[in-house]
C-alpha cells in the first residue's frame, strides 16, 4: 500500500466531496483554457491581418517612421529595386521570404469636383500582384479564403477608397455603398439677402453641379481628383477612377483611405523624376523568423547596403495597436487565471482541511503505528496531487471538447479593427503550451493548497489526535 494508492482510496471515501472539488477544478481549468484559446485566436487573427497587409518587416528610411508622414518624399528609398534585389537574393534571407514588395504612402487632398467636396486623404500605392500573394499567408490555418485586392487587373488610374471617403465626397450612390447618408442641407445664413443677380448665378451653378454629379453616378464609376505635393514641392493633380469603396474598420482611417497602384502614386509624386518608395515590405514564411531575418537585414545594412540610410521595423513596432491589444488580452487572461487559481486553491484547501478534521483519529493511529510526520504530510499532499492531476486532465479533455463544439457552432464575432464578423474560433487543441501550462499550474495549485492542511495534520500531537471525537 504505497502513499499514492492510499491517497487515492482516501479520495474515494468521500466521493461527493472529492467530485465537487474535481468539478470546481474542471470548471476552472475549462474557463482558463477556453479564454486562453480565445485570446490565442485574437492574437493570431490580428497578427495574420497585419502580416497580410504590411508584412512582417519593413525597410524604411531610418527617419521615416517618426517624421515621414509629414513629408514622405523627403524620406523615400532611392533605387529601391536594387535593395529589393539584394534582399531577395541573399542566401540567408531568401529561404525565409514569401514576398518582397515596395510601397509608397503619402498624404494629399481628395476632391469630388462635381459635388464640390474635398478632404484630406492618406494614399497608399502598392503592387497588386504582390499584395495578392501576401493575402495568401495563413500560418495559423484560418479557414477564411484569401481576399483578392479589388485593384487587381484594373487600369493604373483606378483606386479604392474607404467608405468614409465615399461618404464625405458624396460618391456613395455611384459606388452603391449601403448605409451611406447624404449630408444634411445647409440652413440659409442670417446675413443680408443675396442680390438677385448673384442668387441666379449660384442657383445656376448648383443646378449644374447636381447635374454633373448625377451624370457621374449614372455612369456606374466615378472620378476623384487627388492633389499631392511632388518631390519638388509643386502641387500635382491626378484624376482617378474610383472602382470600389471598402470599409476600413477604424473610422479615422476609413475617412481618409485611398488605395492605388504604385505606378500611379509614383507618377503623382515624382512625375518624370526617378521614382522612389517609402517602404520595402517583407513577408516571411513564419512569424518566428522575424528575429533571424531582422538580424540578417541589419548585417546587410551594415555591409552591402551600408550607404543606405535604412532601418528595419517589425510589424509590432509599426502597429503599436497590435501590442496594446495583445497586452490587454494577456492582462485580462492573467487576471482571470489568477482569480480561478485562487478559487481552486481555496476549494482544494477547504476539502483537505475537512479531510484532516474527519481523519484526525486515523492520523493519530498512523502516527502511533510508526508513520513519521513526513509520512502524514506526504499522504495529504499526495491527495492534493491526485486531485490536481485528475482535475487538470478532466479540465483539458472537457475544454478540448467544448472548444470543438464552439468552433463548429457557427457563432461569429467582429474583432476590433475589422468590419465583417468572423467565425468564433477557440484555439485549444494543439496549443501545447497553453494546455500543459494550465494543467501543470492547476496541479501545482492543488498541491500547494493541500500543503498547509497536510502540514497541520503532520503537526498534530498523537495523543490529541487519538483522543479526537
Amino acid at each position, binding site marked *: *500500500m504505497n502513499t499514492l494508492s492510499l491517497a487515492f*482510496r*482516501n479520495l474515494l471515501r468521500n466521493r461527493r466531496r472529492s467530485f465537487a472539488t474535481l468539478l470546481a477544478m474542471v470548471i476552472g481549468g475549462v474557463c482558463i483554457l477556453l479564454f486562453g484559446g480565445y485570446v490565442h485566436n485574437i492574437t493570431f487573427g490580428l497578427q495574420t491581418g497585419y502580416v497580410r497587409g504590411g508584412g512582417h518587416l519593413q525597410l524604411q528610411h531610418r527617419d521615416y517612421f517618426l517624421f515621414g508622414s509629414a513629408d514622405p518624399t523627403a524620406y523615400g528609398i532611392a533605387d529601391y529595386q536594387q535593395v529589393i534585389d539584394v534582399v531577395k537574393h541573399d542566401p540567408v534571407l531568401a529561404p525565409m521570404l514569401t514576398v518582397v514588395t515596395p510601397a509608397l504612402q503619402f498624404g494629399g487632398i481628395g476632391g469630388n469636383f462635381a459635388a464640390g467636396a474635398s478632404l484630406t486623404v492618406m494614399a497608399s500605392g502598392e503592387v497588386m500582384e504582390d499584395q495578392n500573394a501576401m493575402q495568401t499567408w495563413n500560418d495559423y490555418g484560418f479557414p477564411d479564403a484569401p481576399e483578392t485586392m479589388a485593384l487587381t487587373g484594373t487600369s493604373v488610374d483606378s483606386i479604392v477608397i474607404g467608405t468614409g471617403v465615399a461618404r464625405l465626397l458624396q460618391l456613395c450612390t455611384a459606388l452603391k455603398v449601403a448605409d451611406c447618408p447624404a449630408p444634411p442641407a445647409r440652413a440659409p445664413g442670417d446675413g443680408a439677402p443675396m442680390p438677385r443677380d448673384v442668387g441666379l448665378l449660384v442657383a445656376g451653378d448648383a443646378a449644374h453641379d447636381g447635374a454633373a454629379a448625377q451624370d457621374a453616378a449614372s455612369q456606374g464609376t466615378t472620378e476623384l481628383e487627388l492633389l499631392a505635393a511632388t518631390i519638388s514641392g509643386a502641387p500635382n493633380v491626378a484624376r482617378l477612377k474610383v472602382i470600389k469603396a471598402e470599409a476600413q474598420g477604424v473610422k479615422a482611417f476609413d475617412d481618409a483611405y485611398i488605395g492605388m497602384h504604385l505606378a500611379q502614386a509614383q507618377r503623382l509624386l515624382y512625375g518624370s523624376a526617378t521614382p522612389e518608395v517609402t517602404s520595402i515590405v517583407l513577408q516571411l514564411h513564419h512569424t518566428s523568423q522575424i528575429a533571424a531575418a531582422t538580424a540578417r537585414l541589419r548585417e546587410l545594412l551594415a555591409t552591402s547596403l551600408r550607404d543606405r540610410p535604412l532601418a528595419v521595423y517589425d510589424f509590432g513596432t509599426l502597429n503599436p495597436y497590435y501590442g496594446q491589444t495583445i497586452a490587454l488580452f494577456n492582462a485580462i487572461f492573467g487576471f482571470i487565471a489568477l482569480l480561478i487559481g485562487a478559487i481552486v486553491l481555496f476549494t482544494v484547501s477547504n476539502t483537505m482541511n475537512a479531510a484532516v478534521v474527519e481523519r484526525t483519529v486515523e492520523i493519530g493511529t498512523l502516527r502511533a*503505528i510508526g508513520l*513519521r510526520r513526513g*509520512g502524514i504530510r506526504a499522504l495529504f499532499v499526495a491527495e492534493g496531487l491526485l486531485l490536481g492531476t485528475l482535475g487538470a486532465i478532466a479540465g483539458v479533455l472537457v475544454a478540448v471538447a467544448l472548444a470543438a463544439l464552439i468552433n463548429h457552432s457557427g457563432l461569429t464575432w467582429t474583432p476590433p479593427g475589422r468590419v465583417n464578423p468572423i467565425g468564433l474560433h477557440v484555439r485549444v487543441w494543439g496549443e501545447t503550451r497553453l494546455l500543459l501550462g494550465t494543467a501543470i499550474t492547476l496541479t501545482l495549485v492543488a498541491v500547494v493548497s493541500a500543503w498547509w492542511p497536510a502540514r497541520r495534520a503532520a503537526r498534530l500531537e498523537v*495523543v490529541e489526535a487519538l483522543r479526537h471525537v
Partner: protein
Amino acid sequence: MPLLTVTNVSKTYHLDRVEVSALSEVSLEVRPLCFTVLSGASGSGKTTLLNLIGGLDRPDKGEIVLNGSPLGMLSDDARSDFRLRHIGFVFQNFNLLPVLNAYENIEYPLRLTRTRPSVRTRRVRDLLEAVGLTGHARHLPGQLSGGQRQRVAIARALATSPQLVLADEPTANLDSHTGDAIIGLMRAMQRDFQTSFVFSSHDPKVLAEADDAVLLRDGRIVSITRKSEAEQSR
C-alpha cells in the same frame, strides 16, 4: 532484567487554565513475556501511563526505558521508528484504517518497515490464521464485526514482532462473550509470539488473566500484584 522501566514519571495536563495531574512520581517495572494489566477507576491515569510507555506522549518528569532505550532521548522521528519496530498498539475503538482490508491493515506496518514482499505475505497469512480470520482477509473493517476488527487490530499490533504490545481497554467496546474471547486470544498470542502485553482494564476477568496487576488511583500506583513463575506457567 525488566523489559520496561518507568522511573518517577509525572505528567500534568493543562485544561484551559486548570492544571490536572494525570500521573505523579510513578515508578514501575514490566517483566518480559508477561501479561501486565493496569487497572483503576476512570481518571486514575491508566491511559496516560500507556501513552507515555508507548512513546506517544512525553513525561514532564522522570524516565522511561524500554529494552535499554530511554524514550525521552529520542527525536520525534526516532520515536516513530522505535514504535514501529518495538511497540504494537491495540485501541479500544480498534482504529483500523477504513480504506484498507483486513490483510492490508495487518500488512501496513510491514510496508513501513520495508519488509520484503514474500516475507510480508507469509507473516500476514500467519497472523490472519492465528487470529482466525483467514477467510476474511479481503474484508474491509466496515464488513467485520467488532470482535473481528479487534482481532485484526491485534494481528496488526503483532505484525512487526514487537517486544511490547500496549492495549488500551481492548474489550471496552465488545460484549462480554466477545471480550472474553479477545482476552483469551491476546493471552494465547502473547505466549505464541513471545511478547509482552501491557493493557489497561477494569474488567475483573482481565485482571484474573494478568501475570502482573498494577492498581492506579489518582495518578499514583497503589499496588502491584505479581504472580510467581509457577503460577504463570499454570
